[in-house]
């Protein structure tokens, strides 16, 4: 009953949400939201370079992110400036470079909007290949490194004392997040990309009693947000990326309300225990 482009939109959106869930949890636990935003700013440079060099935009963005992340890791190891200062320098330099690069090109202003705000209904078969190929790689790596990544998140020094290569694991996590952003860029758009990482994870926190539960729940809530957002986009002809984010925010509010209601109910049943 649906047209093919809607199936592609749903498949792509759900694929992205599932992959973003576990990594979004790390973004929340490790307070990396600004890192996500900084990468998103850098994505503009990646897209502009892709246009300028006539290469695949996902590939050029991924390349930009890898350079960005390695530069950040190198600067962080100097320990002279705080991480958020370094991120600010890198992200705004990349954004500015991207804007300057774009100013040399006349033709692509319209195309660019799709990258800024996402165009889930224009997802192509190639995009799906990127999403499911990249997503499978991300999920497999995340699962393989899971316990070690949780360990460095609990306490980095403790993990280092117990022999974990903290620096390399941290870099791996940053690269995984970079890859998620590349994969999700076409769907949500670079302006709102961080929200797909943090909003479902934050909503999942309310009901989770283990890191694994929170990761799976974040994926499920993200997928629900995609379904809601794409549905709204089709019905009211709203831009797809922002619609997904609005749906995710609504889910977050709903979990808050559910938690408050649950507390009140427990209080009413066991007034002494609360």
């Amino acid at each position, binding site marked *: 009953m649906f047209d093919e482009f809607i199936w592609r939109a749903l498949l792509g959106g759900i694929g992205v949400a599932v992959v973003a869930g576990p990594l979004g949890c790390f973004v*929340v*636990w*490790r*307070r990396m939201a600004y890192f996500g935003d900084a990468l998103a700013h850098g994505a503009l440079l990646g897209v502009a370079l892709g246009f300028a060099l006539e290469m695949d935009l996902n590939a050029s963005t991924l390349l930009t992110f890898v350079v960005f992340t390695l530069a950040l890791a190198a600067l962080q190891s100097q320990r002279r400036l705080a991480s958020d200062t370094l991120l600010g320098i890198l992200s705004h330099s990349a954004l500015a470079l991207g804007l300057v690069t774009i100013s040399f090109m006349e033709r692509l202003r319209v195309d660019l909007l799709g990258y800024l705000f996402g165009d889930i209904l224009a997802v192509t078969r190639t995009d799906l290949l990127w999403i499911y190929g990249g997503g499978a790689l991300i999920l497999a790596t995340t699962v393989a490194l899971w*316990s070690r990544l*949780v*360990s460095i*998140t*609990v*306490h980095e*020094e*403790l993990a*280092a*004392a*117990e022999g974990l290569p903290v620096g390399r694991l941290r870099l791996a996590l940053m690269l995984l997040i970079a890859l998620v952003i590349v994969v999700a860029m076409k769907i949500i758009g670079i302006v709102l990309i961080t929200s797909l990482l943090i909003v479902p994870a*934050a909503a999942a*926190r309310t009901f*989770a*009693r*283990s*890191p694994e*539960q*929170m990761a799976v729940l974040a994926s499920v809530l993200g997928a629900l947000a995609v379904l809601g957002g794409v549905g709204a986009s089709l019905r009211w002809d709203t831009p797809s990326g922002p619609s997904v984010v609005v749906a995710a925010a609504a889910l977050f509010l709903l979990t808050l309300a559910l938690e408050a209601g649950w507390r009140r109910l427990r209080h009413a049943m066991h007034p002494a225990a609360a």
Partner: protein
Amino acid sequence: MRTMPLNPSPAPARIRSAPGEALVEARGLAVRAGRSELLSGVNITVHAGEIVTLIGPNGAGKTTLVRALLGVLAPSAGEIWRRPGLRIGYLPQRMHVEPTLPLTVRRLLTLARGGGESPVRAALEEVGAEHLERALLSDLSGGEFQRVLMARALVRDPQLVILDEPVQGVDVAGQLELYELIAHIRSVHGCGVLLISHDLHLVMAATDRVVCLNRHVCCTGHPESVLRDPAYLELFGPRAAGKLAVYAHAHGHDHTHAKAPADVPLP
């Protein structure tokens, strides 16, 4: 490569260390951060089966020394030797687990262990925290949390336990219990214990050797001899010494009240 063996012959592989065997040793250790020297010329050794307490005022470099011994921090000079294959259980200072990370006590311990149920339960029973196994870390009190962290250090079956101010946020009765627990752990496991403290009177009873640190080693030795050391008195002042004299007196040594300065009110 700054970490190199002092002793070229490797210790034979054993599950338990022999009592008195050196576990970790630093020689002429210096650590600097920028222009300031955090530690210089530090010599320290921890042997199997002994409790070494590191005391010193705030900013003396106690945690820095521990981080260097753990290998988390690279020294700027000197040598650190660790027994090959040494398993360390570590309880860091002011450990804070992000409240957005939902973690039960059991999960915290299995993360340290890499799976396995029975060592986790045994470690929790040893510190008297078995009832907390399914509790979330965010629901624990300060004392409960410190016990759980102690269990986490034990679950790796360590030969050396390093505890950085393990009693902070714990009331005095709880502190005494924790020090008794540390002494008990040492005698049951035969492990070496390196303990950081800046409160002196409670920790003395459970200590074999005291290392008094203020960016360098001021004095070291048996608690009783450190107590009488002029360097120690200079560092901590007569008030702390007075308290300790009274404490030692209660254990039948020859410090008398007369030795405590008269203007110091006795506790």
